[in-house]
């Protein structure tokens, strides 16, 4: 059985990193709103990066969704895990999901919105 202390530590770590990413994301969005960055598709490279990033995030989401199978037996419902425990498991999963989501969004925004060189987007 996974120790609850470890699970709560994982949850706390994930929330801390997710919070940091959220702050960076707000700063990034404020730059976009201020016209300092603009969207750039980046052609074929942009498509490949999008596909790979989405596949990685999707795999992580799939793995998280099937965590009860790993913890107990194939097909264990989440509702059962919630009741049986261990305590902190749901908190850890929630924090991990938020972290992966936040990291995905940040990576995409960061990659596709590039700094405008030589004046604002409107000026050009």
């Amino acid at each position, binding site marked *: 059985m996974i120790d*609850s202390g470890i699970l709560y530590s994982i949850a706390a770590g994930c929330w801390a990193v997710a919070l940091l990413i959220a702050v960076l994301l707000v700063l990034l969005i404020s730059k976009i709103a201020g016209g300092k960055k603009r969207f750039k598709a980046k052609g074929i490279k942009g498509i490949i990066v999008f596909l790979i990033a989405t596949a990685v995030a999707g795999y992580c989401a799939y793995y998280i969704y099937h965590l009860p199978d790993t913890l107990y037996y194939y097909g264990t419902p989440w*509702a059962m895990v919630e*009741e*049986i*425990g261990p305590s902190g498991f749901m908190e850890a999963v929630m924090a991990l999901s938020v972290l992966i989501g936040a990291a995905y969004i940040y990576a995409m925004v960061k990659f596709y919105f590039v700094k405008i060189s030589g004046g604002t987007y409107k000026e050009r």
Partner: protein
Amino acid sequence: MKKVVGMFAAFALMLQMGCGPAKDTLAVKPSFEEEGVSIVDRGNYFDVTLDYTTGLTPRRMGELFGKAILQMEPEYESLIDSYIAENINKNDYPGSFSRVEDLKPQLEQSYKEEIEGIASAFSGGNENKRADGKLSLDELYLFNLLPDVARGTQCSFISVFGESSETKSTISARILDWYGGSKNQLPRIQGVITIKHPQKSICSIGYMGYIGIITGLNDSKVFAAILDSQSGAPYSSEGRRSYPMDLRYALETQDTLDSAAEFMKEHSEQHTINYLLAFSDEKESKVLENNFSGTGTNGKEVRCELRGWDSKLNDGITWEMKNAVGSVNSFMLYGNKDNYSDNKCNTKRWENMKAELGKMGPVVTPDELKEVASFNGGSPGAFLDSGDLYNKMTLQIVVYQPESFELDVFFRPQESRKNPDKPVFEKIQIFN
């Protein structure tokens, strides 16, 4: 901006709908009474009577029971069908029926007829299709043999008697920690089922359509309940018997704790899994430790023995209180397999049970025993590691005094999967 706010509001509304009560609390459910079968909706549980003194055959009894169940809970089939699907995955689903087939021949003929009668009221027929919303005959058998085929009953038991009881007679508390289903399926069909025979009557605190004994008692003041105790022994169902069905038979035919325990011991090696049975009568309580297929400790191999308050326990396990017994999901008798020490789920509950019982002093009242059975650290925690006797998995707490037939039961609310911080007990009239 308004559109975005509107979308969020619509999404929040959808979420609310999804998280709403599992049961339409406004629905009015009538009582059912026909020939020897009656069901009364008591709000949070169903009060069922199956009266064989009317001369009904088991088959007819089953037919009427099935009809009554559907009248009282029209969604019964989909509830049980989805419950089975949640407990048995699609890979194991076909194989579980072969286990059922192994167990069937050893079932009492009258029990088979009851099950077949109940199934005749349902729409599944003979087609076994997982999660189709219908209940077939085999699926009803599977539901009735779930503890033998899929196991998974976790529980606790505490009892005081003699000088340790305020009434000088036995007070027993049994906590049923069982997965109730994501839609609260089991609480929605929970019931007190009285089966009246010309010679003897029994009462099962269980679930409509489940005819074995999870927790039960008879009018000879014998109380019995099943508890799981996994030993890691290989599983076999070939030629085996169902232990909750045998326990029903024991309650239907035996007059004393010892004879009921003896009956179970006689068949102990024919069951599919190792388990514990908590027994009480008006004078005492004991726990039958059945480890027929497992190994032992201390150079001994205890196979199937009764544990009393003064029994010698395995190294490292202590029990200080006189005239009181307790049990979690492990063997404890000296020489029996030690499936206790390395299992935090058991050690924590055992230690909390002892500590809470110790706080009550040398003499325990029924209310104090309820308090012990309701122990949690503020709110019910996760079953595995909280150490709470009353935890997130608790579906029932049964407090019973055999001498006076006083029965108090906490049933998980039908409309919510979340257990309240403090369980509310209902007084239940039996054998009226």
